């Protein structure tokens, strides 16, 4: 439960830090670190505009999207402790839970009957078709190495094995960051800033959501970035069980890397 709370706390300012670093690197002052949080509060106070083309799918999709990512966070272990849901083969549950969220995101985009959303939905379906096997093979190879099939068991075995697991951790980080760039709509796969149809996957699917729905989707996007980094940290840290410091330590490398990607 603690990991859930800490990931949400980290998600409040994580994207803000990334945007601030990007801005300062391009010579601007940039928005404040907590601008994301202020955006969400502002959206909750606003009303919504629903398109006449949409149906019940459009109403329930953002909620299911957020619920799926919360379930996925519950699976991720926290330091030495298990996640709230932990069993053999739980990463299958993890991946398919995220796929459930993506399914609803895609059909809510198709629900609006617009060409922009259709384009984004088509690309999202294609890219998640490629990203899922990549993640599976990654965790599958660690399962082969350590002989366990649960996130918790795999990471515990990695921490207590020889130093070569750190090298493997670096390789795994490389793959996981590529997957994260696809999932979180980072460059060079997707540009979170522009809203032009040629460069977007995730931003274009939510063009028609407004108000509380948009707030829910923003919360989802930020939590997704955070838990991917949480997974990343799990490959390296053994003695520092507090997730907060883990993600805080890694935001530096994340910003440097995202800066290299953006320019």
């Amino acid at each position: 439960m603690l990991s859930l709370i800490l990931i949400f706390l980290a998600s409040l300012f994580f994207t803000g830090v990334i945007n601030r670093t990007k801005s300062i690197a391009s010579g601007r002052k940039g928005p404040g670190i907590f601008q994301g949080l202020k955006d969400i509060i502002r959206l909750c106070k606003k009303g919504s505009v629903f398109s006449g083309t949409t149906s019940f799918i459009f109403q329930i999709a953002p909620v299911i999207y957020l619920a799926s990512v919360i379930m996925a966070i519950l699976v991720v272990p926290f330091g030495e402790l298990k996640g709230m849901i932990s069993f053999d083969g739980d990463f299958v549950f993890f991946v398919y839970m995220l796929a459930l969220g993506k399914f609803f995101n895609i059909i809510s985009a198709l629900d609006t009957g617009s060409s922009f959303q259709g384009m984004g939905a088509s690309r999202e379906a294609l890219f998640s078709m490629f990203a899922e096997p990549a993640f599976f093979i990654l965790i599958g190879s660690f399962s082969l190495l350590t002989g366990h099939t649960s996130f918790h068991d795999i990471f515990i075995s990695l921490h207590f094995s020889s130093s070569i697991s750190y090298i493997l951790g670096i390789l795994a980080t490389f793959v996981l960051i590529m997957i994260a760039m696809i999932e979180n709509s980072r460059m060079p796969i997707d540009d979170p800033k522009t809203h032009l149809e040629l460069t977007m996957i995730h931003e274009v699917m939510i063009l028609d959501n407004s108000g509380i729905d948009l707030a829910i989707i923003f919360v989802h996007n930020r939590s997704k970035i955070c838990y991917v980094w949480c997974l990343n940290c799990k490959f390296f840290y053994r003695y520092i069980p507090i997730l907060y410091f883990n993600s805080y330590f890694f935001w530096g490398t994340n910003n440097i890397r995202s800066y290299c990607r953006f320019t």
Partner: protein
Amino acid sequence: MAFIFLGIKTNSFDFKDFTIYAASAPVQVTIGLFICFFIGFSIKAGFFPFHTWLPYAHPAAPSHVSGVMSGVIIKIGIYGILRMILVIKTDYVVIGYSILFIYVIYGVYGFMLAILQHNLKKLLAYHSIENIGIIGIGIGIGCIGIGTGKDILIILGFAGALLHTLNHSLFKSLLFYGAGNVYQATHTMNIEQLGGLTKRMPHTSLLFLISALAICGLPPFNGFISEFLIYSGMFAGLQQLDLFLLTALVFSMFALVLIGGLALMCFTKAYGAVFLGTPRIAEKHIPEEAGWGKLLPMYSILILMVSIGIFPNLFMEIVAVPVGLFSVSTTLTTSIVPLYETLIHISYGALIFLVLVAILYFIRTLILSKNEFITGPTWGCGYIAPTIKMQYTASSFIRAYRKLAEPILSIHKKKKEISGIFPTGGRQETHPYDQAEELMIDYPIGQFKHFLNKFAFLQNGNPKFYILYGVTFILLVLAFPSILNIIISILNFLNQ
């Protein structure tokens, strides 16, 4: 043929006698027998490369029959194969690997074709092929387990295969019934002409959505449970130290995940193009929701599906009995206990998810009721003249995928390019066709017909020639024994 062979060898048609014979026969004979049985049951079940009848039969049949056909009758072929695995005790490792290999290719190939179809029922028929591929992967793992004597592989492989057989019959029947409702309301099966049916047919839309989620293997429904069992079987197999087995398992795991990703694309396309958005062709008459006579069986299937998804342990009890028949040791009940614990965790996960969705939806409605909301047209980035044609069609949805798969499949494409400074119009049609069908059935039959055409001069419509054929035949039949006698006497004369 295989049955005749066994009948002659054992002088009876009893399965027990077959087992006794197969235990003592040499390996090549049993493998040959198994291949014959396999091919026979494969044609029934619609396996590659004998699957070509499936996509023609399913759309042609009325929907309720399609549902039963896909759900039940194909499974009889699988039942036959499983029965034969029990009866013919042969070298299971070889059989296991070959089944795994065939079905991995088969599942992915079936899917690659399914995504491209325009006809809703043909899409579902090709998708049946792919699900049978998944069942085959489970059977393959189970067979490898029997061959190598690892109990856990047997349990997980066969339990996954059997449960997926049950699940597939449930959700595929539901999908076909839904497609039937759509057809009866709109009189077209072409996805490109449908759209926006959710508003008119809410029940059918909900049922189709839930069965689409289940067939993609998404939690909390039953498809996830059976795919999870097969994955667990693969991971249990990864613990062995056999390199060939490891390579095979890694490839089949990759294929299974790829199937999951392709399922996402296929069913978002099917559900989105048929039910969501706006109608793509002006409707001639307003489609109406199906009556309660049609909806009631669909809802009962739905209740069963959701209950398997949320309470899998009850159904594992049912599945454990046939799985027990396959195992080599008698410790089945103890080995299956950790599996029950894992499934209980999945139940908890599914229930937590549903509760979470309910809570979040309640919070959302609460916040929404405080603020006002209005209805407006879909945002088109300020374009002032939106039309229905601007909506994404199903073909455009899968265009990126089609470009990737084009070298492997044969797709007929007609395109009229836009040209000139003031273009008048363009046009593109794509028709997917089955490459395997082209190679294996169309081409040989084409050659055969070509050969037979050389004899076309025999059929010239002139009755005098036909009388001539008849008279020649009678003369030959009468004269043949006497000619034979003459030849035999000449030979005897020469021998003396």
